[in-house]
Structure formats: structure tokens, C-alpha cells
């Protein structure tokens, strides 16, 4: 349990550090939301000063940070200048959409990568391995943005699946099953892009980990024991190769999360990506900080889940 407590403490410290760094960088960046207003002749300098005072922008940085921490404790996460509303309810809806997409894409990516990586290791040097590693290499060199735009083009040209958004017009009045189907159709494009972005890394790591284990003496011993090859792969080799893969799972959540921000913008998925971009362009300080903080929370949570899974899977960690 000390291991888990230590990991939890690390996660909490990482989050605290993220808030400080994000706050510092976002605040120290030149310009703010009200600088844009200065160009508007209808808004007087006095009004601007009053607005800055209202949002505590006239106070020193440490004070502003403490005020923001206080508002975080009150469940507000600061105040959006553009939406004139607390940040948390605004980002929570977008974060939910991002989570939905990222979790779906992560699960799909692993479901596809696991058999591909295992088969690639089992048939190392044969044509199936060449096809899998070759395809992975091609996907690895294609920039994420090119892949996203390519699939968007296909969606627009073929109309096989919706090219943007999260739901069709009037979908909210549909029965639950139809709504779910509509959501699945809309998710197809961004999820496919994210899965393809994640595949090369996952397949290569799984292949390497399983290939290592397949060379172990206990696999040979089990083979001599008459254990069928498929069982050797899935019941022996894969669980024995699990440790680095569990760590990779935590990492893949983070990678897909950061990848999803770009994909969301390209495919108009109403998640944190477009919302953060909009906030950055508008210099909506607390929305940017809130969005980054929530992304970090997901990333840290993903790694913490991986740590817990590792703790459960590896007795050596439990006895540490």
C-alpha cells in the first residue's frame, strides 16, 4: 500500500506543480483578454480598469494564484472572461466529450494492437509480421494532422460517415438506442484517426515485449508440456509481458489525450481541443488554465490507473 500511497502523492504533487507552471506561463504571456477591448473606442479606459480589478488582474501574481486556488476549492476554477461564467461547468461538458472520445479510442486501439503485436511477434520475420510492421512504419511517418485531414476529406467526399460534430440535428429527440447509434457514427471519424495515430507505437511495443518473452525458457518448457501454441501466446506470453505494456497503457492515455485535442479541432468534436484553442486565441486566461489542468488530471489519472494495475499484476511491486 505504501507504493500506491507514494504514487498518489506523486500524482497530487504533479497536479499542484502543473497549476503553478500553467498559471505562470499563461499569465506571463504578453497580452490579455482586455487588451483586445482597448482597441474598441466604445470602451473607456476606466471601464477596462474596473474590469481588470473585478477579475483581480490588477493584483500581484502570487495573490492572483491564491485567489484562483480558492475558487478551485469552491468548484469554480476561475472565471471565464468571454463566457462571463465560472470555468468548471464550461470545461466539464467539453472534458466529458473528450473523455468519451479518448477512452473509446484507447480501448479500440488496444483491442486492435494486442492481437497485431502478438501475431507479429509469433510470426516474426514472416509475411504477416512484414505486413504489420510495414503498415506501422507507414502510419508512424504520416503526421497526425495529415492523417486527420485525409480522413476528413474521405468523410466529406464519400459521406459514409458524419464529417463533424457529435450528434445530428434533432438527435436529442430520438430514442436512446438511435441516439447511441448516431453518437457512434459521429465518433467513427475522430476515433479512427486516434486509433491509427496510436497503433504504430502500441504494436511495436507489444511485439517487442511478447517477442522477448517467447524466447524465455518457460515458454519452451510449456511447449514441451504439450500446451497449444495459442494458449502459450495468450495465457503465458502476453501476461508475462504485461508489465511494460501496463506502463504503456498509462502513457497511451496521455498520448491519445494530447492527440485528441488536434483531432477534435479538425473533426469539430465538441471537446476540450476546440474550446482550448478558442480560449487561447481569445486570451481567456482561466479557461486555458482550467482546460490544461483537466487534461493533466486525465493524464495523471491514466498513469495512476496503470500504477494500480501494475501493483495488482506484479507481485514484486507488492513486496517492495
Amino acid at each position, binding site marked *: 500500500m505504501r507504493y500506491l500511497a507514494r504514487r498518489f502523492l506523486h500524482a497530487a504533487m504533479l497536479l499542484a506543480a502543473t497549476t503553478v507552471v500553467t498559471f505562470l506561463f499563461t499569465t506571463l504571456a504578453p497580452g490579455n483578454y482586455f487588451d483586445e477591448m482597448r482597441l474598441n473606442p466604445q470602451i473607456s479606459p476606466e471601464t477596462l480598469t474596473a474590469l481588470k480589478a473585478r477579475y483581480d488582474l490588477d493584483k500581484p501574481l502570487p495573490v492572483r494564484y491564491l485567489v484562483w486556488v480558492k475558487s478551485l476549492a469552491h468548484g469554480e476554477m476561475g472565471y471565464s472572461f468571454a463566457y462571463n461564467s465560472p470555468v468548471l461547468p464550461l470545461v466539464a461538458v467539453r472534458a466529458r466529450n473528450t473523455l468519451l472520445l479518448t477512452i473509446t479510442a484507447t480501448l479500440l486501439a488496444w483491442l486492435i494492437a494486442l492481437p497485431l503485436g502478438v501475431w507479429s511477434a509469433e510470426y516474426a520475420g514472416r509475411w504477416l509480421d512484414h505486413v504489420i510492421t510495414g503498415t506501422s512504419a507507414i502510419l508512424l511517418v504520416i503526421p497526425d494532422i495529415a492523417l486527420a485531414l485525409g480522413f476528413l476529406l474521405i468523410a466529406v467526399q464519400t459521406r459514409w460517415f458524419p464529417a463533424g460534430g457529435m450528434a445530428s440535428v434533432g438527435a436529442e429527440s430520438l430514442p436512446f438506442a438511435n441516439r447511441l447509434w448516431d453518437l457512434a457514427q459521429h465518433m467513427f471519424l475522430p476515433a479512427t484517426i486516434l486509433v491509427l495515430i496510436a497503433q504504430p507505437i502500441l504494436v511495436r511495443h507489444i511485439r517487442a515485449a511478447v517477442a522477448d518473452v517467447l524466447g*524465455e525458457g518457460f515458454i519452451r*518448457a510449456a511447449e*514441451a*508440456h504439450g500446451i497449444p501454441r495459442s494458449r502459450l501466446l495468450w495465457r503465458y506470453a502476453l501476461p508475462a509481458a504485461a508489465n511494460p505494456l501496463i506502463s504503456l497503457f498509462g502513457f497511451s492515455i496521455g498520448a491519445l489525450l494530447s492527440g485528441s485535442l488536434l483531432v477534435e479541432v479538425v473533426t469539430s468534436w465538441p471537446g476540450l481541443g476546440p474550446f482550448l484553442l478558442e480560449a487561447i486565441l481569445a486570451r481567456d486566461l482561466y479557461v486555458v488554465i482550467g482546460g490544461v489542468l483537466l487534461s493533466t488530471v486525465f493524464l495523471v489519472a491514466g498513469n495512476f490507473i496503470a500504477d494500480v494495475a501494475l501493483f495488482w499484476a506484479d507481485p514484486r511491486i507488492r513486496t517492495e
Partner: protein
Amino acid sequence: MSVRALDQVSFVVQPGTRIAIVGASGSGKSTLAACLACLEKPSSGSICFQGRNLEFLSESELQNIRPQVQLVFQDPAMAFNPIFTVLEILEEPWILQTKLNSEERKERAAELLGRVGLPRRILDRKSADLSGGQRQRLAIARALALEPKILILDEALSALDYSVQAQIANLLLDLADPSIPLAARPAVLFITHDLVMAARITDEIIVMQSGRIVESGPMREVMRNPAHMATRALIAGASGVSSSHEKRPAV
């Protein structure tokens, strides 16, 4: 450059016999063991099991043969899945090949452990928690779990101390107890470079050198009148070792 690991090796293993395969390092003993256990395919020649040439069998047919020819490796630490408990290690083949329920499998595993002198309480432990001697006995128990027709021990006692070697030797002698029906008695191929232990456990001997059988026959006869230089060298080495070391415990 290709190396011929085995050349013109030919012998017959009858049910219930105990044969020592001895030779210096690099003489091809372990390659022979891997071929007999269907883990390696010979590039030429044939291995027949119960009249069937293994060369012409499909992978699924070989899958059925493998449990009947069990190989115990030299290094028991490497032979077990590190994430399996002792029970999981022993019950794997029963899950696949029998309809025993979990309780029955557990009972049978405990019985098997008792046969190799291991306590029931280790069933829930991982192999890494066992000593070297316990692991090797577990390896033999796992091999016996399948009631094999041939049990091959590839330098299986080499890394063990003398007292554990003696325990396992006794176990192997028990397997050859004449009160056990011949059909239930596995043939034992004892691959070793330890002639002293081989002479205690086995009735026949095959001496190998550079991938070839250079001498074979009944153990006593070969030990008394070795015909080949390699056999004489092994006997000389063994007597040197036994005279320079403390006396081994009686088997």
C-alpha cells in the same frame, strides 16, 4: 557454416527402461533431447514414437505426442511461468486434457507434490519462492502430471546439491518399481555428464561424442569394459571426481 549436431544416431527406447546418455559438453546430448521432445526437427533422419514417424506428423498431431514425451530442463528457474502458482503450473495440462473440476485438480496436484516429496502448502506459492531443489522436483512433478511414456532429464540434477540429487535419484528409482505395471512406467532418458549418478539410476548407457553414439550397452558391462576412448575418459574423470570429493550420500 552449418554444424551437424547429431550424426548417425540410432537407438530404441523400450517401455520402462532407464537409459543414461552421457558425453562431454557439445557432444549433442541436449540437441538429441530437444529432438526427442519434438521441440526441434532433425534436418534428416527420423524419430518414431509408437511406430509413427514424427517427421510426417502435423503440428496438431505433434501436439498430442508432446505430452507423452516429457523433458525436464537443467535450469528449473527458467522452466516455469513466473506469474503462475505451483497449482496453476501443475493443473495446466489437466485443464486442457481432462474434465477434472478445480477441487479434483487441486487434490491431484497435492498428490503429485507428495510423490516428489514436496508439501501441499506450496500449491499457492509462485515458483520463484521455492528453492532450487524444490523447483527441480516441481519440474519432475509437472512432467509426471501428464503420465508420460518417456521422461527425459537433461542435466536435470547437475545444478543441485548432493542431498537433493539423492532425493531425486530415489524418486526416479521409485518410478521404475517393478510393482508398477510396465505400461504405467515411463522410460527414463537420463542425460548427464555425471557417470556416477548415471550408474546409480540407469540400466543402460549411450556414450556420445561429437554428435555420434560411440558406445552403448548395459551400464555395468560398459562401465566394466569400456571400449571407446571417450567412455574411458568419462570413467576416468568420474573416478577422479569421486576420489577427490567427499563421499556422496547413499542413494
